């Protein structure tokens, strides 16, 4: 029972980690919490759904949904955030306008999705079974699709980790988020690099949407709770740290699974917010956040 619960927790935690990663990627480079992220993820999942319906192949739809997520992320930056940040660039409005704008964008995307696909619950089917693995007579609640979620998330996180640590692009991304002016003076094209960061974030959210949706249903708001969990995970991790986002997601996923198993479903979100408040009160910068505000 303990192992079952742990596995389920890791599977949902992996998804929270992806969502948290998407938030952290944008936060680090632009200091904006991108509330539109769940909208972007749901839109790319709908497009993945359409592709899987017309091709009858989940495995074709998955990479295309990820690609769409990346393009969406890049477009949100190019058409929207860059314009806004160029216009509202001083005073208190400069801090808050982009965040409010992402909320507006979230509403815009979700309404658009509702307009096109309606509010019905759609089934984005994966060929992998949603029934738990069986060992003799014992069936655990962990299914092949859950296993795929864990593997896919781990692969995505490992790819991002490797890009950040070992490639020129990763170095440029880190430099641009830590000290944009110095990066610029060293010859890094900071705004282009930032745009790639938005695309990465969009693709991470798209992976989350496309692998989790086959376990339930797809509707314009179906990823909202996931976003909230991802946000809590990101804050626990310090909003600034990629490793923190991953660990925050896993801690939250496993924590939720155990509460669901041993206490009951009605208190899971309550506990989520208690964890969030406890972390914020005890360690406002998060478990992995940096000591000083680099923007100060």
């Amino acid at each position, binding site marked *: 029972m303990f192992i079952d619960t742990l596995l389920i927790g890791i599977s949902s935690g992996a998804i929270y980690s992806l969502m948290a990663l998407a938030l952290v990627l944008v936060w680090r480079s632009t200091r904006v919490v991108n509330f539109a992220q769940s909208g972007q993820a749901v839109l790319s999942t709908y497009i993945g759904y359409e592709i899987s319906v017309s091709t009858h192949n989940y495995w074709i739809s998955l990479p295309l949904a990820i690609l769409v997520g990346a393009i969406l992320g890049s477009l949100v930056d190019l058409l929207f955030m860059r314009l806004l940040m160029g216009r509202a660039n001083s005073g208190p409005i400069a801090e808050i306008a982009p965040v409010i704008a992402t909320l507006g964008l979230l509403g815009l995307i979700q309404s658009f999705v509702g307009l096109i696909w309606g509010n019905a619950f759609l089934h984005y089917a994966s060929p992998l079974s949603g029934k738990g693995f069986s060992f003799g007579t014992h069936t655990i609640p962990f299914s092949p699709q859950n296993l795929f979620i864990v593997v896919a998330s781990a692969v995505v996180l490992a790819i991002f980790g490797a890009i950040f640590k070992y490639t*020129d692009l990763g*170095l*440029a991304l*880190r*430099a641009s988020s*830590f*000290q944009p*002016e*110095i*990066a*610029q*003076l*060293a*010859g*890094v*094209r*900071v705004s282009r690099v930032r745009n790639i960061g938005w695309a990465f974030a969009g693709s991470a959210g798209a992976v989350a949407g496309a692998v989790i949706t086959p376990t339930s249903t797809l509707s314009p708001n179906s990823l909202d709770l996931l976003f909230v969990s991802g946000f809590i995970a990101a804050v626990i991790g310090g909003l600034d740290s990629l490793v923190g986002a991953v660990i925050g997601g896993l801690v939250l996923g496993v924590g939720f699974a155990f509460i669901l198993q041993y206490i009951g479903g009605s208190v899971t979100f309550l506990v989520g917010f208690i964890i969030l408040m406890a972390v914020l009160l005890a360690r406002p910068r998060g478990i992995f956040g*940096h000591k000083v505000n680099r923007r100060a």
Partner: protein
Amino acid sequence: MKSGLEVQDFSVDYGAIRAIRDLSFHIVPGELVAVIGSNGSGKSTLIRALSGLIAPKQGSASWNGISILGKKPEDLVRQGIVHVSEGKSVIPELTVSENLALGGLWRKDKLDVAIATQESLAIFPVLASRLNQRADSLSGGERQMLAIARALISRPQLLLLDEPSLGLAPLIIEQIFVAISHLQNQFGLTVLLVEQNAVSALKIADRGLILNLGELVKAGTPADLIADPELRTAYLGF
């Protein structure tokens, strides 16, 4: 076409204040020119405008006959103009070798990046033993060395140095200025050195420009400037 750095009727605002007013000067290739002035003389604003961080209000500036105005810093780096900004401009969260690598990221010729890196480490050998440490573990002097070393990996023709002596002990300042002088002599770099520390700067400079409240007070060789008792007491402070 005039080679070198040509600045004409240059005016730059800092907030609501006109920080540089109708400034004109010319630096020939291979020359090391020190811009001397106290706080608020506009010298940092001048260097930030030349590197594309801020836009001037009027005037022109060109490097080897090509205008450098309206270009972003990252484009000017590709044109051979590299600015080492004030206050040990390194990225503290990155390691020493990552900070160095930043200077060569944009360059296609990776072989020459490797050569330039070795040359920079030969000039500042202390960095070679610290390659895998985070830059925030370095002393102030080492950070300044790292910032200059990173700039060299971009193979600059014109180096814009903003107060490299800021906050450093006299012995370290001496070391860094010897290195800057070496860059001019060995690599033929053109250097615009902005400094409050007039004594150290004029020791290595070919010429000095004295700025006060955004206007050029006097330009001349270090010997000429030092010989003027009025300048010495009012601006040079020795």
